[in-house]
């Protein structure tokens, strides 16, 4: 069975199914689903012939299955009429357009579409589409709708709820129930997602990641164990994997790429945006257990001639994207480190003060080759949130934050726990 990419149910419904000789068997009208797994598997395809007979075709007998062509391995004459039973679970009859409620029974939205994906060669339900684009897709005007919206400067993205957020489905259900509350579905913390992910099989994990939006996927990936991170990225579609990596902090992305084969890592780097790729590339060159390997290249650097209030203005603009904002570093035009100010210093200083006049110049720094344990000792000894990494000429390369080394400071047992949950 050749199965390419993800597919929405509405994209294949009413599509003709061809037999081995290329003759039309009928059109797809439904899918029979086998429950039990986290991601329910599609067992057979319901095809309705021109004479309105129903034929159930087991999925193993499907030869091609994509948005354009669906074909079966049998000849038309070999296919006998067969109806789905009352107790079977059918996507269109039993799932599509059904109400979704949260754990408290609060109505949220209806199932606008269902996303199918490949889990170990089986076609499975991986997410329900509850967004506006799902409705447009059902009307077969997704493309026009998106363009029209684009004219007004809006973009419509799919709003997917991964199948594992839903209670197990069973025949004759009247609504789909979420495992979580409504607020959580949009504000689901990445670590919650990571927790759910850790309970699913590896195939499920990849499927789940495919169903998340890039931003969420990047955050959730960050919360997972290093080994798992690499495996998931390895199994994912390269385009999407590189998009997710771009959205991660360079040091984390570098860690993941470091765990992959060199070949794969290079491929993904090539697919990434140039700027992000360069940052990651730089980090990859350092040994993993040194300051250079731990550091992130993102830090807040300002020139010394700015006032405190200028700094705040800039912070408000930039900081949503920056991991660590507890320190700002004062640098010259070619990134030589001159001084540092903590957030506390800035808040207490007069808004009109020039930062080069109030900055602290006695700075603890490390070099890229410094061993990670040394870095950890330094950070814990001086109670720092981050320590700058500089080269021999005192040029700023990046910072190692307390988050990056906290695992080294914890006893091994709690370290594992933190990663798992």
């Amino acid at each position, binding site marked *: 069975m050749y199965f390419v990419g993800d597919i929405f149910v509405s994209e294949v419904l009413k599509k003709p199914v061809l037999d081995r000789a290329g003759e039309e068997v009928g059109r797809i009208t439904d899918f029979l689903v086998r429950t039990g797994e986290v991601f329910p598997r599609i067992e057979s395809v319901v095809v309705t012939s021109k004479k309105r007979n129903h034929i159930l075709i087991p999925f193993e007998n499907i030869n091609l299955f994509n948005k354009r062509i669906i074909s079966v391995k049998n000849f038309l004459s070999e296919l006998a009429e067969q109806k789905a039973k009352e107790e079977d679970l059918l996507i269109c009859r039993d799932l*599509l*357009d*059904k*109400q*979704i409620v949260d754990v408290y029974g*609060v*109505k*949220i*939205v*209806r199932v*606008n579409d269902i996303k199918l994906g490949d889990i170990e060669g089986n076609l499975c339900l991986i997410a329900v589409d509850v967004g506006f684009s799902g*409705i447009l897709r*059902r*009307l077969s005007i997704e493309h026009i709708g998106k363009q029209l919206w684009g004219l007004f400067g809006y973009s419509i993205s799919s709003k997917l709820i991964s199948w594992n957020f839903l209670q197990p489905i069973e025949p004759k259900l009247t609504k789909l129930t979420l495992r979580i509350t*409504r607020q959580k579905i949009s504000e689901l913390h990445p670590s919650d997602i990571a927790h759910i992910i850790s309970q699913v099989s590896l195939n499920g994990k990849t499927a789940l990641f495919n169903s998340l939006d890039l931003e969420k996927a990047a955050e959730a990936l960050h919360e997972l164990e290093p080994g798992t991170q690499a495996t998931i990225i390895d199994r994912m579609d390269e385009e999407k994997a590189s998009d997710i990596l771009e959205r991660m902090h360079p040091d984390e992305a570098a860690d993941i790429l470091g765990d992959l084969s060199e070949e794969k890592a290079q491929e993904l780097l090539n697919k990434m945006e140039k700027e992000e790729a360069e940052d990651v590339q730089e980090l990859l060159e350092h040994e993993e257990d040194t300051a250079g390997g731990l550091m992130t290249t993102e830090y807040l650097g300002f020139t010394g001639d700015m006032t405190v209030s200028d700094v705040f203005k800039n912070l408000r603009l930039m900081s949503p994207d920056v991991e660590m904002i507890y320190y700002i570093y004062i640098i010259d035009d070619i990134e030589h480190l001159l001084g540092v100010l903590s957030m506390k210093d800035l808040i207490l200083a007069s808004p009109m003060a020039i930062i080069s006049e109030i900055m602290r110049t006695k700075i603890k720094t490390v070099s890229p080759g410094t061993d990670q344990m040394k870095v950890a000792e330094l950070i814990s000894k001086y109670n720092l949130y981050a320590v700058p990494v500089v080269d021999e000429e005192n040029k700023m390369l990046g910072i190692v934050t307390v988050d990056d080394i906290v695992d080294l400071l914890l006893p091994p047992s709690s370290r594992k726990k933190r990663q798992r949950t």
Partner: protein
Amino acid sequence: MKLKIFSRLRRNKFIIFLAILGPGIIASNAGNDAGGIATYSIAGAREGLRFLWLLFLITFILAIVQEMSARMGVVTGKGLADLIRERFGVKITLLSMLLLLFGNLAVTISEFAGIAASLELFGVSRYISVPLGALLIWALVVKGSYRGVERVMLFFCIIYASYIVSGILAKPQWLHIMSQLVTPNFRYDPKFINLSIAVIGTTIAPWMQFYLQSAVVDKGIKVEEYKYAKVDVYLGSFVTDFIAFFIVVAAATTLYANQVDINSASDAALALKPLAGEYCFILFGIGLLNASILSAIILPLTTAYALSEAFGWESGIGKKFSEAPQFLSFYTVFIIIGAFFVIVPSYNLITIMLFAQTVNGILLPIILFIMLRLINDRQIMGEHVNSRFSNILSGGTAIMLVILTILLIVSTFKPDLF
């Protein structure tokens, strides 16, 4: 008739009586809204008793259609929009929601026109009455004391009884009325056809079916209790049309007899002159205001409920904005647009009211056909599918409306065809 229910329940207190007032009575009574009063008055004033036979006929059809809605609600526990979405998918849902949106918007505008017209009788400018009315209506639901208010306003619907008294006091020729009730009357004339569609559209409005079914579901009536719901629905239909009947009779005997056409609320108020004399304006004004406010709440509510059902959003009166954002947004926007169209373009208020009913009459067949598909589906209704009798009458009504609509279009362009 209302007295009869009252005596049967006399052991209970008055408040409890109000509390058990069924969805059927509310839905039908809210149907006698600004547009309803205007349409029946105009029908009586322009055509005398010629519409009585139609009114008599559609009373039974109203009862049958309402019974279908109530039965679907009881059996499935779902609203009409719920069923449409689950049975027909996105395309048909979107189509029916757009139609409902359009029809309901027209009716909502007519309710605000009713508020404006009734208060203009008391010398209040529409530029004051409409924004204030809109604000009041919005606050009643969003700030959450609506259920109590609804009961009070239903009680005030008793003002309609003044039409009954007025109709009797006008001393109509009862024998003539009786014969007109059973004598079909039709004329190939765009005005007559338009009025026919409006009379049907205001009596059996699409929004009433959505409202009634949701209300039945809301009450949680079980299949075993269905026979009571049926009584409630039948009673509501007959009481409502009984009043409509007297509006037509009163208007026919006072206005048609003296060749007075209705161009404003004060013309329509003259139908109450036999009862109230000089004070007929006050009586008519209060009645119209009450009916308009009640329906100006119910219409946007029904629309917001139906849309929420169709798209699966949380809904409900007394919910906070964060709990039901789409529901409350639609309710709010609907009120604003409804009020806007009465103030800004400054059309004749009576024209607005009549127009909305025609729109509803034209849209009704589509909703009726959809209802018929649903109620005859054994997967949805089980053994409670429609009887052949109900199918023929409601299907026949839908077909009749389609024919009338075609005739309206043809007669507008080719008045001399027949």
